[in-house]
């Protein structure tokens, strides 16, 4: 393809990006409230772990008055809180609210026709749109995030990680965005076959919640009688929440960290290809039942 073609594509995506941002800014108030609400579940988790650590340490030693200082699955109380805060960061990149149901709805109500009629790629459009939405989100969320992390600075006992870990952390965050996007797109595209993906989305969310490290650090998963801890290593979920957080906190280091990053790249590529395949098959199938 020649240069003018690529220039044309680039200006198309750029225009689409700008329009997506404009669209997102229409609902700023809703966004600010949504952002602040994100911290509420974490607050309840802080209290929960406070109580757990408290109970564990008072059972283990006599002087519980000094506060919780025992370790659970390698996490101190501070470490645990730091973990949850980092998971918020991971999820700010990897969570894709409304993507699956959005695609499914477009398939069901026929809005997807727009992308069949016009010379433009739907997944590309959705990706650009999502990038725009995320950027708007970070813009609005930056201040409350900074405030919370500043207040909670004491929980990060080991301070900032070294540059190479920082590099892997940031890369893994960006990859977790792509992974989340393409994984959820694939689930959405299943609507071409099932139309109703609500139950499927629910199952996915449940698995994601448990196996990504969103609910608790993956170190807490049992190894017996079923080796769930080993199992999640082979799943894409852990890159959506656990992996970037664990890298930042030094829970995953050295060769293991780099191996994890390579695995994440593989998963992203896998879901990009899968989404392409599902799209091309799905469109044929869509043609089959119309709509």
């Amino acid at each position, binding site marked *: 393809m020649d240069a003018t073609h690529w220039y*044309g594509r680039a*200006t*198309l995506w750029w*225009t*689409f990006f700008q*329009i997506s941002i*404009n*669209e997102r800014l*229409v*609902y700023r108030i809703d966004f600010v409230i949504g952002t602040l609400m994100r911290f509420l579940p974490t607050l309840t988790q802080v209290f929960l772990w406070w109580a757990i650590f408290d109970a564990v340490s008072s059972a283990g030693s006599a002087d519980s008055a000094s506060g919780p200082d025992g370790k659970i699955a390698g996490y101190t109380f501070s470490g645990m809180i730091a973990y949850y805060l980092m998971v918020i960061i991971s999820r700010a990149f990897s969570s894709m609210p409304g993507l699956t149901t959005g695609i499914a709805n477009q398939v069901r109500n*026929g*809005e997807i*026709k*727009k992308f*069949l*009629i*016009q*010379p*433009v790629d739907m997944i590309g459009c959705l990706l650009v749109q999502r990038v725009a939405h995320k950027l708007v989100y970070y813009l609005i969320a930056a201040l409350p995030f900074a405030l919370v992390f500043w207040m909670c600075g004491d929980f990060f006992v080991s301070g900032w990680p070294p540059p190479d870990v920082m590099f892997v952390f940031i890369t893994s965050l960006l990859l977790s965005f792509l992974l989340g996007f393409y994984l959820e797109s694939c689930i959405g595209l299943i609507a071409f076959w*099932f*139309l*109703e993906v*609500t*139950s499927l989305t629910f199952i996915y969310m449940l698995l994601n919640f448990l196996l990504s490290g969103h609910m608790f650090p993956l170190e807490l998963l049992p190894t017996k009688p079923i080796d769930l801890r080993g199992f999640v290593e082979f799943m894409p979920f852990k890159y959506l929440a656990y992996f970037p957080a664990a890298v930042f906190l030094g829970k995953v280091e050295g060769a293991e960290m780099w191996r994890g990053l390579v695995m994440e790249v593989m998963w992203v590529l896998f879901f990009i290809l899968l989404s392409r395949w599902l799209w091309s098959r799905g469109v*044929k199938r*869509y*043609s*089959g*039942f*119309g709509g």
Partner: protein
Amino acid sequence: MIALDYSGSLSFSNLAQTRLLACKHPIYNLAMSIIEINHLSKSYRVYQKQEGVWASIRGLFRREYREVQAVRDISLQVEPGEFVAFLGPNGAGKTTTLKLLSGVINPDSGDCRVMGHVPWERENEYRRRFALVMGQKNQLWWDLPAAESFRLNQHIYAVPLDEFDRTRDELCEMLDVTHLLGQPVRELSLGERMKMELIAALLHSPEVLFLDEPTIGLDVVAQHKIQQFLKAYQEERKNTIVLTSHYMKDIQALCQRVVIIAQGSIFHDGSLDDIIDRFSGDKIVTLQIGGPDEVFQGLRKLPNVLEVEPPRIKFRIGRDDVARTLSDILSTYAVEDIVVEDPPIEEVIAKVFTDAQGGQVDDESHPDIAGVS
């Protein structure tokens, strides 16, 4: 790539020949039409679902389907610059045909070429040259001004900026919506939104335009405005337009050619006048008669009197009987005025649809409409 020019009637040039051979067209028409439909059929499987979550989960494994034959063996040619209407009752297959033509769905069997392209191959080359507007579907960005959607379309279709500005300004002026360009689409009225949809679809100057119920739900003024616009636009650009509509007014105002589709088959293909000639054997006669009201007593006995409102009487009569009956009346009564007209087109069409739903259609022996009413 060889670009075919369909703006005039296409002569069988070497260029066209090369292209025809290149795309392995099974039928080599000497003068190729802009739209060629050959024996196109399409049926849907409609999923029968029960309510409830468990039914949904069960539905993942086992489903019941009902087969709906939406289009049956349709063949049709449309020449460049034609304005064709697809007319038919709900669920007749009009929209399905448009979907096939715009490549949204694949057919079960049959073959179709629009500007030399197979629609459902969805080549970008084809997609840049047509547009589909659906009266019930929104293609604009809901929360943003229409101007933004237009700008996006400019890039999607790679329209040069100066050309884009010119076309947009011209279209906005024709439809009188320039002052609404900056308003979020969700705040526009239905009529205004439809005008914007039309503009969005026309910005890349499509050679073929498919309109699915473009005036559905609009008030008379907006309907009229859109009709006028389409007429003026088509006369100026000479592009090819296929329209489906329920409103006879749309079709009367715009289309020289009407294709009646019922139960997935083409039932009639010709002008509106042809339809009346073919499907209605009747005339409506209105007489104005001088003299006292008693004279109407005799006329009331005529079969199929529609209304008596002295000094006027209106009745329906078979076309073949018009001359004889009128000469009888003229010799008996003091007739002051006579109007002989065709029955309203809506009525004829309604009858055609009813016949078509009945399934059995016979060109020669139509039931006598006079006997029905």
